[in-house]
C-alpha cells in the first residue's frame, strides 16, 4: 500500500466533502433544526403550563356531598413551583382562583358555556366511598393537567377542614414536592439529584451516544454515497489505473471519516455553550478517560461501518440503491439509542451488557452505559467490547476490500448476497 496515494485521495475526499454546500447546510442546519424543535416542543410547553395556571381564575363546584360547604372560596397557587428548576429558585408568584358553588350541573354548565368559569368540578354524593370526581372544562390541551394541582390543594383543604392554614394544606397536597434525593455517584460520593441534575444525567449520555453514533453514520454515509456516485459517474476506472483498490478504499475511509468528525466537531462546538453550561451548573462529572474511550470506539466502529458501507456502495449501481442499504446500517448503529431508557435504567443489566459487547451496537451502547448516572462499567467489559469490535472491523475491512475490488467495475444487475459472498471468497 502506497500511503502517499492514500493521503492524496483522503485529502481530496475531505476537501471535496467539506466544501460542498450540503455539508455547510448540514453542519449549521442540523443543530439549528434541533434547537428549533426543542424550542417549539419544550419552550411553549412550559409557557403553556404556566399560562394555563394563570388563566385559571374561576372554578365552579357542584358539591353533592356537602363536605365542602365550608371550604375556602379562593385557591392560592404558587406557579413558580411549576417552572423548570434549571437555575436559581424563582420568587413566589401567587395566582388566585375564585371558587363559586352551584346547586346543580345545568346551572354550572350554563356559567361555564357563558365563559364565567374556566372549569366546573362535580363532586358526586358517593365521592368519599368511590373517590370519583368529574371535571368539565371549556377546552382541553396537552398541558391541561397543570390546573389539576390547585383543585387538588382545594380538595385536601376541604377534606381536612378549616383548621389548616394554607402552608399545611400545600404540604399535605404535595408532601414530597421539595424532597431532595442524594445518590452515590460513580466516584462513590453521595450527590444531590435535583431537576437540573436529572436533566443533565439524561441529556449527557444521550448527547455522547448521539454524537458518536452520528459521527460514525455520517462518515459511513459519505462513503456509501461517495463510492456509489463515483461508480455511477464512471470515474473509478481511470482512477484504478493509477491507484490500487486498497489505496482508494483507505483514502476514502480516512478522508470521509475526517469529514464526519469535522461535522460532529462543529456540532460539539455549537452545543458546548448550551450543554456545557448546563453540565457545569449541575456539577456533572464525566467518567475517567471518557474522551479516549470514545475516540477508540469511534475509530473502530467507523472502520466497521465505513468498510461495510463502502463495500455495499461498490456493488450498487446508483445513489438511490446505496441509500436504501445505508438506512439499515444507521438503524443498527442507533438501536441502543432507541432502547436508551432500558440501558440508562439498568446500565449493568443483561440487555445493556449484551448490546455493548455486540460489535454493531457496541459503540453507542457502551457510551450510554458509561455515561449513565452512577454507572460503573467493569474495565474487562470495555476491553472485551473493544476487542470484539476490533475483530469485527478487521473482518469487515477484509470482506469489503475484496468486494470493493470486484464491485467497482461491475455494472448492470445488483448482485445478491450469495454472489457478494462468492466475490469475497475470490483471490
Amino acid at each position, binding site marked *: 500500500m502506497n500511503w502517499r496515494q492514500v493521503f492524496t485521495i483522503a485529502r481530496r475526499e475531505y476537501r*471535496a466533502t467539506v466544501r*460542498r454546500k450540503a455539508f455547510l447546510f448540514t453542519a449549521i442546519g442540523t443543530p439549528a433544526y434541533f434547537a428549533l424543535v426543542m424550542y417549539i416542543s419544550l419552550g411553549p410547553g412550559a409557557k403553556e403550563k404556566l399560562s394555563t395556571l394563570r388563566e385559571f381564575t374561576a372554578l365552579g363546584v357542584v358539591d353533592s356531598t356537602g363536605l365542602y360547604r365550608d371550604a375556602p372560596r379562593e385557591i392560592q397557587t404558587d406557579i413558580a413551583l411549576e417552572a423548570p428548576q434549571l437555575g436559581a429558585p424563582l420568587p413566589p408568584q401567587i395566582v388566585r382562583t375564585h371558587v363559586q358553588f352551584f346547586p346543580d350541573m345545568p346551572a354550572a354548565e350554563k356559567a361555564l358555556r357563558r365563559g364565567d368559569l374556566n372549569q366546573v368540578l362535580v363532586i358526586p354524593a358517593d365521592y368519599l366511598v368511590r373517590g370519583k370526581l368529574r371535571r368539565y372544562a371549556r377546552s382541553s390541551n396537552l398541558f391541561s393537567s397543570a390546573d389539576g394541582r390547585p383543585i387538588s390543594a382545594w380538595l385536601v383543604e376541604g377534606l381536612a377542614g378549616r383548621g389548616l392554614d394554607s402552608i399545611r394544606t400545600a404540604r399535605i397536597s404535595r408532601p414530597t414536592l421539595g424532597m431532595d434525593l442524594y445518590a452515590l455517584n460513580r466516584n462513590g460520593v453521595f450527590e444531590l439529584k435535583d431537576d437540573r441534575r436529572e436533566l443533565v444525567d439524561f441529556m449527557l449520555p444521550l448527547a455522547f451516544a448521539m454524537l458518536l453514533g452520528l459521527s460514525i453514520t455520517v462518515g459511513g454515509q459519505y462513503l456509501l454515497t461517495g463510492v456509489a456516485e463515483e461508480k455511477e*459517474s464512471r470515474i473509478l*476506472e*481511470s482512477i484504478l*489505473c493509477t491507484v490500487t483498490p486498497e489505496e482508494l478504499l483507505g483514502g476514502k475511509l480516512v478522508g470521509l471519516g475526517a469529514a464526519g468528525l469535522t461535522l460532529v466537531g462543529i456540532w460539539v462546538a455549537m452545543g458546548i455553550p448550551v450543554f456545557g453550561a448546563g453540565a457545569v451548573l449541575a456539577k456533572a462529572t464525566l467518567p475517567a478517560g471518557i474522551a479516549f474511550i470514545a475516540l477508540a470506539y469511534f475509530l473502530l466502529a467507523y472502520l466497521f461501518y465505513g468498510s461495510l458501507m463502502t463495500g455495499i456502495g461498490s456493488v450498487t449501481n446508483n445513489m438511490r440503491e446505496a441509500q436504501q442499504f445505508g438506512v439499515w446500517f444507521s438503524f443498527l448503529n442507533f438501536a441502543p439509542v432507541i432502547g436508551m431508557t432500558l440501558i440508562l435504567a439498568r446500565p449493568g443489566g443483561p440487555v445493556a451488557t449484551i448490546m455493548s459487547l455486540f460489535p454493531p451496537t457496541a459503540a453507542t451502547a457502551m457510551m450510554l452505559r458509561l455515561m449513565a448516572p452512577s454507572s460503573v462499567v467493569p474495565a474487562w467489559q470495555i476491553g472485551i467490547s473493544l476487542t470484539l469490535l476490533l475483530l469485527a472491523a478487521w473482518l469487515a475491512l477484509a470482506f469489503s476490500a475484496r468486494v470493493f475490488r470486484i464491485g467497482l*467495475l461491475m455494472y448492470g444487475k445488483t448482485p445478491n448476497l450469495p454472489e457478494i459472498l462468492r466475490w469475497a471468497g475470490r483471490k
Partner: protein
Amino acid sequence: MLQVHEVLKSYDGRAVVNRVSFEVRAGEIFALLGPNGAGKTTLIRMITDILKPDSGTIRFEGQPIGAENRQRIAYLPEERGLYKRSKVGEVIEYWGTLKGLTRAAAQREAKELLARVELSEWTDKQVQALSKGMQQKLQLCTALIGGPRLLILDEPFSGLDPVNVQLLEDILSERRAGGVTVLLSTHQMNKVEELCDRALMINKGYMVLYGPVREIRRAHADHAIMVRAQGELDGLPGVRRVEQVNGDKKLVLEPQATAGSVLRAILDRGVDVESMNMAELPLEDVFIKVVREGLGLDHGRSEIEPDALAAVAERAR
C-alpha cells in the same frame, strides 16, 4: 515496451481473454481491435493492472506490471467520468498528484495541458459547466498528465467534432514524437488506417489478427494489384479480369501469377505506368469479414507474422 504473453482470464469458467500474446513496440501507435464483447476491455484492465490475469504474464519496459511501473501507464477508458462538482484545474492537478507529481508540478503541467486543449479559460469553472466534448478533452488531460510512457486510449474520438478530432490527432503525433507509445482501441477503422502502425484484433477472447495494419489489409484483399497507367491493360497474361476503381485499374490476378510477372507484361506492352501497389482491403471490410467468419483466418495466404498466426490457429483448434 509492452509484452503480453499467453494471458488468460476467465469468469465463471468462461474464458474472456484466451491465451493472448502480443507485443507493443516503443514509440508506435498500436491498435487493439475487436467487436463488442470480444474481451478488449478485460485485456486493457489487465494491462493497466486493474485486473490480474489467471495465467500468463504482462511486462512493461521489461518489468512485470505492478505498483512500480503502473504510474507510467495512463488510461482513458471508454466509459468516461469526472468529478462534476470539482473545478477543471483541480481535477487535472489531482490526477497529477496521484501519478506522483508534487502539487506545484501538477499545477504547472495542468496549466500547460489545458492550454494545449484550448480549455485555459475554463480552469476555475466546475466540470459540470463543460460540454461533452470539452469534458472529453479534460479527461484526455488527466491521462496525459505526469508524462506517461504508455497511453491507452479507448475510443478517444467518439463525441469529438472534426476540429477536436484533428487536435487529438496532433496531440498523439506530438506524444509519439516524444517517445510515447499509444495503444488505441477504437471502432473507427479509418483512424486505425490513418494513425496506427500495427494492430491486434481479438474476437470472443481469441487473437484473430495481429501485425502491421498495411499487411493485414493486403492479406485480406483479393490477389490483385492497383495500377495507374496510360494504356490498354486488358488481356494481359496472368490477369483474370480488370476493374476500374476510381482513377486506378484493379488487376485481379490468376492464382499462379505474381505482381512482378504482370508488371513485366505491362511494361513489355509499352504501357506507361505511373504507380503500382498491391491491392488492400479497407480495414473495416477486414474487420467485418473476420468477425463474420468467426476465427476464419486464411493462413495459406497470410503474409503477416506467420508464427503468431500459427499459434492463433493452433489455439483455435
